[in-house]
């Protein structure tokens, strides 16, 4: 304890006192630093952090509007919204997206397609904490399985969602089109804020044309959330405007009758109400189930649809461009009369072929033995080619072009379907531009019987037939009938077709009546035993050119190389309520394959279905 005796307690106390003062000063200095730091954060930078804090807790969420429903003319629901449950993932809440997907795959079936499209959507522009659908349309069992394993699956949610559903499936796929997942490209075309909560977009048909109408406008709510994105309360809310419910002119029963009449053959049918232009039926067979596309079609099914030789995805009624064949003879007949190229007394001798001066080529009549002496009436009724060769030669391409254009050939006239094709109405200018060749007289002859360069869609044929049934009064074909139960106003149509003599119409229509009801009418077998009068014209479109002097033998030619059967017509003759165009691909002759389809449709629409107890009634509300 020697050192203890040498300790200087007074000095030690002084040293301590000295150091304690320094310590106090240090405490004060560092406390001032803290005061300054908190002053900086709370007073100087208050506004900055207040904004950050508000942005943290307030979140503007979009509320997706409910898509409008689509009805047929009598109120049958064609496009519905069905509540379904989807499996979604929130990336920010999962530890590892891949591991979570792998775990989910142990519990329920998730295809590679699902995963692939999930990743694609995950890569798109996305708000933080926004959920992305992994699998749609969960079954009750799958929902239960997820619920049982919920505690293991962070970030996995089962969300209720309204999904488009087409109750009639493939019956209307080519009319309504379908909705599908909105793509990045489509998002660029629309107002992004209006589509901020929308997952679906009309891809085809009515769904596409009336997309903005059916979509409605988005609603918003400001919500207070916690850091995990859970909504704690809704602060204010602007309700969305649901999409408009629309009805279309289409008649489901007629549509069904047309599909039934086509009986599985490839073909197309368009029916139009001449007084309004309303499209009563629009059929293209084979068809497909649009419901497959709504939540995303798997690649195997899609490939099967794409690769099918029957091309079910192809809309023949709107996009199929066929030589119209003899179906244009009534229109050309009107042109011949109006240009005074011919009159009702003009007669031509038909030996079975027609020949131009200085030309060896024989232009054949479909009837090898010829029709003998024929006038316009007989030529329409019996579909004599030689009379029309002669008239076309005399009238010339310019006149034919002018009159056919008035009936809407060569231009797409449908008011509210975007994908319809224009067809081809050839002219001198067209041939020079497209083929770099002058117009030859032989081209006029081919055009005179609806062959050669001329192409038209079934929709164009039906439209022209409706104008003819209206005796020149134009109505643009359209689907839309009502929007939110109020009738859609008349739409602007091309100028009416006016002829020098009003009775020309009656003359040609009378000839078309002869096709159905006359002794020599080409479609007389389809016209018999009817309670009403109908007018029509058959047609045949050549698929492959027939060599000179070759005998056409339908049996010998492969089915795919057989001629397309065509028919246009309307009924009743005095007060036309329905105009149709029928195309049966490789059906052979128009009278045998196409006209019966039209007759069944006339009956279905005008007479009504044969009353079989509880069958058709049940389908309509």
């Amino acid at each position, binding site marked *: 304890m020697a*050192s*203890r005796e*040498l*300790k*200087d*307690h007074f*000095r*030690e*106390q002084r*040293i*301590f*006192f000295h*150091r*304690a003062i320094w*310590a*106090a000063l240090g*405490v*004060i200095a*560092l*406390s001032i*630093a*803290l*005061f300054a*730091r*908190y*002053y900086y*954060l*709370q*007073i100087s*930078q*208050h506004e*900055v*952090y*207040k904004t*950050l*804090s*508000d942005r*943290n*807790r307030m979140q503007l969420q979009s509320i997706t509007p409910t898509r409008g429903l689509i009805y047929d003319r009598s109120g049958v629901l064609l496009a519905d919204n069905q509540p379904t449950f989807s499996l979604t993932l929130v990336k*920010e809440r999962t530890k590892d997206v891949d591991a979570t997907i792998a775990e989910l795959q142990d519990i329920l079936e998730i295809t590679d397609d699902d995963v692939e499209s999930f990743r694609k959507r995950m890569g798109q522009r996305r708000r933080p904490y926004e959920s992305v659908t992994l699998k749609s349309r969960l079954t009750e069992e799958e929902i239960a399985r997820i619920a049982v394993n919920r505690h293991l699956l962070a970030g996995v949610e089962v969300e209720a969602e309204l999904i488009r559903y087409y109750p009639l499936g493939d019956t209307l796929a080519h009319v309504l089109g379908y909705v599908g997942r909105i793509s990045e490209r489509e998002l660029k075309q629309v107002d992004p804020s209006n589509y901020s909560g929308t997952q679906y977009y009309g891809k085809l048909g009515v769904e596409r044309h009336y997309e903005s109408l059916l979509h409605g406008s988005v609603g918003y709510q400001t919500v*207070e*959330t*916690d*850091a*995990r994105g859970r909504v*704690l309360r809704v602060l204010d809310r602007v309700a969305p405007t649901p999409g408009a419910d629309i009805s279309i002119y289409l008649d489901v029963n007629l549509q069904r009758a047309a599909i039934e009449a086509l009986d599985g053959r490839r073909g197309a049918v368009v029916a139009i109400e001449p007084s309004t232009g309303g499209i009563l039926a629009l059929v293209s067979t084979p068809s497909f189930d649009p419901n497959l596309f709504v939540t995303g079609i798997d690649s195997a099914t899609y490939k099967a649809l794409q690769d099918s030789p029957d091309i079910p995805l192809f809309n023949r009624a709107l996009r199929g461009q066929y030589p119209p064949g003899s179906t244009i003879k009534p229109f050309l007949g009107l042109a011949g009369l109006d240009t005074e190229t011919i009159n009702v007394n003009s007669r031509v001798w038909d030996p079975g072929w027609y020949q131009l001066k200085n030309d060896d080529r024989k232009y054949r009549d479909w009837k090898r033995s010829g029709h003998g002496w024929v006038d316009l009436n007989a030529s329409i009724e019996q579909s004599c080619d030689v009379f029309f060769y002669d008239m076309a030669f005399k009238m010339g391409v310019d006149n034919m072009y002018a009159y056919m254009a008035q009936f809407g050939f060569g231009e797409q006239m449908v008011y509210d379907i975007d994908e319809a094709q224009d067809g081809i109405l050839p002219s001198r200018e067209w041939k020079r531009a497209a083929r770099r060749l002058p117009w030859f007289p032989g081209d006029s002859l081919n055009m005179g019987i609806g062959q050669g360069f001329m192409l038209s869609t079934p929709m164009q044929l039906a439209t022209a037939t409706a104008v003819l049934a209206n005796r020149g009064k134009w109505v643009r074909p359209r689907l839309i009938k009502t929007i939110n139960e109020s009738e859609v106003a008349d739409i602007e149509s091309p100028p009416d077709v006016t002829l020098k003599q009003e009775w020309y119409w009656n003359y040609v229509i009378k000839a078309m009546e002869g096709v159905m009801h006359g002794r020599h009418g080409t479609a007389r077998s389809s016209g018999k035993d009817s309670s009403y009068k109908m007018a029509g014209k058959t047609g045949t479109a050549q698929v492959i050119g027939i060599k000179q002097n070759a005998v056409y033998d339908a049996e010998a030619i492969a089915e795919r190389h057989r001629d397309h059967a065509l028919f246009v017509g309307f009924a009743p003759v005095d007060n036309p309520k329905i105009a149709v165009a029928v195309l049966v691909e490789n059906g052979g002759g128009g009278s045998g394959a196409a006209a019966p389809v039209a007759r069944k449709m006339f009956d279905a629409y005008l007479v009504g279905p044969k009353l079989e107890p509880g069958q058709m009634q049940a389908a309509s509300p």
Partner: protein
Amino acid sequence: MKSSDFVRQLPGGEAHFSRPRTLASILHIDVPLFTLLLTLVLGGLFVLYSGSEKSMPDVARQGIHFAVASSLMLILARFDPQVFRRWAPWVFFLGLAGLVAVLVFGSDAKGAQRWLKIPGVNVRVQPSEFMKLAVPMMVAWYLSDRILPPSFKHIIGALIIIFVPAALIAKQPDLGTAILIAASGVFVLLFAGLGLRWILGCLAGVAALAPAMWFFVMHDYQKQRVLTFLDPESDPLRTGWNIIQSKTAIGSGGFGGKGWLEGTQSHLDFLPESHTDFIIAVLAEEFGYIGVACILTLYMMIIGRGLYIAANGQDTFSRLLAGSLIMTFFVYVFVNMGMVSGILPVVGVPLPLVSYGGTSVLTLMASFGILMSIHTHKKMLSR
């Protein structure tokens, strides 16, 4: 019998030699310090209620922590400081043994071994908390017998006493506690009169050692914390999240605050650890700059009182120990408030007597018990 006779002979005579026997003196309480602590604790419980998502059970449990810790404080206050001095080496080596045991058999909590289960009874102890008292006691014991200012040999001796436990704790790894313990030991040295040359030399040494620490001692998560501190925006959703959210909470509180229980940052779960290490952010958000100024002033008053007690300590051991304990308390305050407001890296240091947690409350109240013991056991004659 002898003493009672003496009393009878000189009635009231003791009053001349000691202070009046009030309740405070019977309990060995320093009234100003006790009042300040009580204010802090009660105010802290209000903030805790808000910071713990209005969890009354949490507040009640913390109340029990305080009750137990206050009892410990009162018990320690009754001991003469000389008892602590005598026990210092035993306490220190017991703690050191505990630290070694933790490294060998310790149980995990959040990836770090800090706890030691005592077999048989369901009690877990944290030897590192124990060392927060044992290290300054030991260093004060070691130096109080030497001639001060300490010689080179004694400084080295003191540094060994400080850094052996600090290194063991850093290895658990618990950098926050290691720093606090090292600081408590160093404070003893400073109060003992460590020369200015030494102080500057040590600062230079730390600066030189820092890169070596970075590469050889620090764990990845510790490095990450430092990187995050330097640039919180670099990883705003993970490691930077805490500090960004706590700054937002503090800053959005403004001058007057959003009001009690109205803090959106904490109540909407944006603020992490809102009832433990980051509770000052809750206070700053709900009570604003006024609240921060009040609590900081309260801390300064407690520290001021503590330094006063230390300066008036009767012997060198008491002064060194008291000075070290109260300055360590300040380190708690500064490191916690500094890290939450983003001027220091995030190390796990609670806001003393406000953050939820029983262990730190126990240690801190024990240290205040020692301070009160030092203040209430002064004899008339200086030694």
